[in-house]
């Protein structure tokens, strides 16, 4: 099926007026641009030519039934899927006008500018402090005061500071599941990325921890462009302004979240939203 291009109307009536800094032209609608992107695991084509334009400083959710390619697309934004042997892609993804597959793009630098939060929280077996400092260390930043400052800033952003400020040097593995996931978010933003990719970040969390992470996501979109994969329809409608519905490796519909959930234009979307398949 073909995916027609939706001109994305950013609703002016969103709760928060957007404060865009100089880095971004106001209303940059094609911050991330996916251009006829196909992805192959060996012979298996997992994405069949995706076209998608993601504006900056928004929360975009990817929804769709299991195996439809949400994670695959997400993991291409920071080229994590390259680590799997035998994969290849066609088409292009540009961020800020630059192709991420351009030979001049250093994948290391790309991943520093794109934070990623995984489904299963994966803090390193080190202290809370060292977990957040890790992205700095590998970038060659060894300054203690920068470390201290970053740890506090990121933990505050991740709404974790008050809970852990007295035990920064304890092992991160002693935190609760929800705290671990927020620590991973803190780590993901430590290298000051512009984009935050989240692959089902709440699927292993209880409702209270989930609510905290959702609050956090809404808070973080002031500074980041956030793409979140979720199976939770309520979550998608709570946190995101735009929603993309995928089905069998195709992008079926991409629109304002409100529209997707109240008045989808495709039958498949409606059937999925209303729980008739998926």
């Amino acid at each position: 099926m073909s995916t027609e291009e939706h001109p994305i109307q950013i609703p002016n009536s969103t709760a928060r007026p957007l404060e865009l800094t100089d880095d971004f032209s106001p209303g940059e609608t094609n911050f991330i641009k996916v251009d006829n992107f196909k992805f192959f695991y060996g012979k298996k084509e997992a994405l069949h030519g995706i076209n998608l334009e993601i504006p900056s400083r928004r929360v975009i959710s990817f929804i769709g039934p299991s195996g439809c390619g949400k994670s695959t697309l997400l993991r291409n934004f920071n080229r994590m899927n390259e680590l799997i042997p035998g994969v290849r892609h066609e088409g292009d993804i540009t961020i800020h006008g630059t192709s991420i597959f351009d030979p001049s793009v250093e994948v290391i630098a790309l991943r520093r500018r794109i934070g990623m939060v995984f489904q299963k929280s994966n803090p390193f077996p080190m202290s809370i402090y060292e977990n957040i400092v890790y992205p700095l260390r590998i970038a060659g930043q060894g300054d203690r005061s920068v470390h201290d400052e970053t740890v506090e800033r990121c933990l505050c952003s991740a709404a974790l500071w008050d809970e852990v400020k007295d035990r920064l040097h304890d092992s991160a593995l002693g935190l609760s599941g929800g705290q671990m996931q927020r620590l991973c978010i803190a780590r993901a933003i430590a290298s000051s990325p512009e984009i935050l990719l989240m692959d089902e970040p709440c699927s292993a969390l209880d409702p209270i921890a989930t609510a905290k992470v959702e609050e956090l996501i809404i808070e973080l979109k002031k500074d980041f462009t956030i793409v979140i994969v979720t199976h939770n329809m309520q979550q998608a409608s709570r946190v995101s302004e735009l929603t993309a519905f995928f089905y069998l490796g195709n992008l079926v519909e991409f629109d304002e979240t409100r529209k997707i959930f109240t008045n989808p234009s495709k039958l498949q979307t409606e059937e999925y939203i209303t729980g008739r398949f998926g």
Partner: protein
Amino acid sequence: MKPKPLHFFSSPKGETSFFRLLRNRFLTGLCIALSLLTLVPLISIVILVIRNGLPLLSMNLFSQLPPAPGLEGGGFGNAIMGTLVMVGISLLLAVPLGVFSAVYINEYAPVSPVSSAVRFVAKLLTGIPSIICGVFAFAAVVMTSHHFSAIAGGVALAILILPIILLTTEQALMGVSSAYREASFGVGATAFQTIWRIVLPDAMPAIMTGVMLAVSRAAGETAPVLFTALFSQNWITSVLEPTASLSVLIYNFASLPYAYHIKLAWSASLVLVTVVTMTNILAQLIFSPKHR
């Protein structure tokens, strides 16, 4: 309200539980008896070594040289020294080689032909008789340098333990959660940084276990050092000269017709068994299977 657990667990075919119970009891009893039987030779060795080795045991054994044939007094300090030196040399050679190869085949190129070849050869090498390691080192080092030496003995032991270290390190690396690697790559780390800062530290206890096992194996082997390091009555002064070792001392002295030398061989056995057992126990202790 309650489910019926008894009914749930009983045989659907209606086989009487009495016979099943009996068969089960019998098999359990057989297993216990057989495992006790395997303990017999093990315990007899320990008892024998302790009984014969203990009488002569004193600090002098560790600090003195072996007596000339027919004489009494003295110890085997030089043999302990020699064993330590040669095990040290073998570790110096085999640990870097084994660990780096394991890192390569597990982290960089898990599915390449090179990795398959290395893995295959390592597995083959674990089964190679230790005397062959000695023969090889004899040909490669002794023949070319025209000297029996600690180096030659170390090389032979290194060949012996290389596959152990390589394979246990590979296992250790495989045990590191891939979520850690993903997290590290996700924040922009290079493969080297990921391995050096995340993977190796996490695998370290398991790698150390492998090294300890290798140490205990190398310390106890006679064949690889028998005709590479040969033996010496004196303290080691250079790694380029013939060197005594505990295992060769036992082999040599046990076959001498002098009572004192035979007693020395027993004591050396006791020391060797103790050292090997201790390293083994230490290896188990270091590896506390932690948070995975």
